[in-house]
């Protein structure tokens, strides 16, 4: 059993500096969970608390069902892959990978065997006698992962392991990490600020902001039903479009400053008419309006970006401060700067957020 549960975790550096507030959720055995959020949101700190590198000011952490608060880092059954790999520069790859076992006093034969197996899995057997400075970034990364695998931990911890790699390598490693998880089946906690990594790798995502958990759920859950503005804006690229306005009376719809009326498929029972609301709709859900579309706005194209498989059109709507972004298939329509278009807002795809940023529940 290698679940990890957080019970009311908080961390303070001093009376007024609180980095983590009231974190409470459980990671199941074998899950790949990603902690995601902007820099300084506390995700790395929480990871380090699981590792035993940071004190826990309040609350409890249980690893594998046992209370882990006061257990030494090396006794918790965890292994960590650092952002900068943290390979010992004066040791060979083999020695790096075997170091923890040597510290634990395991017999040499066992160390050899386990190191060899891990090296096979990661295809670095030919590098075993080299020193870290003779390795490329990607190779060092594998060694760092290999060092973690050798320890056969109950939980793997990854602290932004891919951020030091260049883009194409990052993509390859992402795929490899997914395969690794499938092969080993161990619980993995992965910290990143990159939402693409979060979406692709995670069984479940935990979104952090300002030391507080914003939402926990599967990638698609978070994508389709974000709990608040922050989660909605954080996942998905290009970012979700947001329009400010007031809640219409009597229906689930937003009244924009120019008196336009856009309905949404949301349950606004708890809301009050006339209060501030935000409408959110993802770029891929906006489309050029047909005659039959009632929920639509007049807009002028200010920029068109061609990415080959898709096209991004930036639209200026009168009375709306920020340009909207519309994503269309690559060769769908010919649009250029200055075109006047009508943009449809399909109510099924519109989300409503109240004045505090929390989402109104979606109606399917």
């Amino acid at each position, binding site marked *: 059993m290698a679940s990890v549960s957080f019970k009311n975790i908080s961390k303070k550096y001093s009376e007024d500096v609180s980095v983590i507030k009231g974190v409470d959720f459980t990671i199941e055995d074998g899950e790949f969970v990603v902690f995601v959020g902007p820099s300084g949101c506390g995700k790395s700190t929480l990871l380090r608390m699981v*590792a035993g*590198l940071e004190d826990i000011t309040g609350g409890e952490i249980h690893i594998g069902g046992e209370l882990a608060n006061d257990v030494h880092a090396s006794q918790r059954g965890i292994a960590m892959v650092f952002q900068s790999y*943290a390979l010992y520069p004066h040791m060979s790859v083999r020695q790096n990978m075997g*170091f923890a076992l040597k*510290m634990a006093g395991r017999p040499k034969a066992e160390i050899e065997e386990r190191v060899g197996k891990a090296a096979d899995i990661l295809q670095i057997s030919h590098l075993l006698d080299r020193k870290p400075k003779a390795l490329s970034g990607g190779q060092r990364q594998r060694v760092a992962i290999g060092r973690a695998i050798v320890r056969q931990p109950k939980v793997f911890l990854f602290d932004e392991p891919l951020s030091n790699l260049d883009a194409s390598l990052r993509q390859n490693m992402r795929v490899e990490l997914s395969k690794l998880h499938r092969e080993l089946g161990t619980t993995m906690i992965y910290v990143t600020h990159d939402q693409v990594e979060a979406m692709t790798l995670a069984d479940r995502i935990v979104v952090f902001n300002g030391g507080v958990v914003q939402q926990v759920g599967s990638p698609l859950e978070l994508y389709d039903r974000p709990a608040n503005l922050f989660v909605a804006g954080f996942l998905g690229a290009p970012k979700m479009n947001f329009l400010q306005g007031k809640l219409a009376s009597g229906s689930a719809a937003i009244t924009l400053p120019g008196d336009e009326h856009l309905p949404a498929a949301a349950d606004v029972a708890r809301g009050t008419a006339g209060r501030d609301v935000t409408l959110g709709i993802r770029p891929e859900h906006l489309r050029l309006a047909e005659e039959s579309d009632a929920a639509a706005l007049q807009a002028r194209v200010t920029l068109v970006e061609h990415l080959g498989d898709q096209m991004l059109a930036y639209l200026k709507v009168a009375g709306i401060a920020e340009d909207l972004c519309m994503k269309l298939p690559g060769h769908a329509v010919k649009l250029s700067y200055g075109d006047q278009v009508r943009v449809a807002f399909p109510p099924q795809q519109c989300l409503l957020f109240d004045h505090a940023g929390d989402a109104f529940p979606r109606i399917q």
Partner: protein
Amino acid sequence: MSKKTNARNAALLNLLTWALVVLTLLPILWMVLSSLRNYSDVANGNQLDFSEPLQWQNYRDMWINVDFFNFFKNSLIICSISTLFATISATCAAYALARFRFRGSSSVSVGISVTQVIPGMLFFLPLYMLYRNIGESWGMPMLDTYHGLIFLYVALFTPASIWIMRGFFVSIPRELEDAAVIDGCSRFGAFVRIVLPISAPGIIATATFIFLLAWDELFFAWTLTSSSSVQTIPVGIRLFIGQFQQRYDLMMAAATVSTVPVLAAFFACQRFFVKGLSAGAVKG
């Protein structure tokens, strides 16, 4: 700028550079040359008369006139042991200051800086009396002993070295120690197994630095010792300089021999040394 002007400028700069090197080294070369000349030549300023053979026996004469082997041995022992202990204590203290935040760390840092502004020599009499009192009251003689001088040297040279080592430690990423802790090391284990091997160049540089400082020390070697069984080279030279009188050739031989050990230490470690001083320097 044309390529030819560039090449000519470069050649000019090279010439200037090497001329500067020669100019800078001239006094040292002069010292060695004068030590190998007949004393009458030296007295007359005729060292450059290359028709005369090199007078290697000046060294033998100097060695015999002055009890040089004794002084040399004392200097070697005292400076080496002082270097060893000063390096150890400086390394430990520097690691504590570099890695830990704890009550009193800033006071210690300030204290270290202050000891640099107020050298031991300023209040030498209390020190002398302290040594004398320890010898008389506690029965452990400190004056005129190896350990007395060694303890003083270690105490004098540790503070400056702490700064140098601290610079090295700060430049080592903390994650390495974190990884070691996760791998099962105690903090001390992480320090010994991971941090120390990585900072070996810095440690060597610091040790060389301390050795140079110790070898250079004249004042306390002079005031705290009285018998030739403990006195170091600088004391020896100073004691016998009157005896040399006009024998500048012997004096230069003594000077050369005094310089050789530190020169050797420097050349052996100069790679680490240069890197070390430069690294610490940019941070001020």
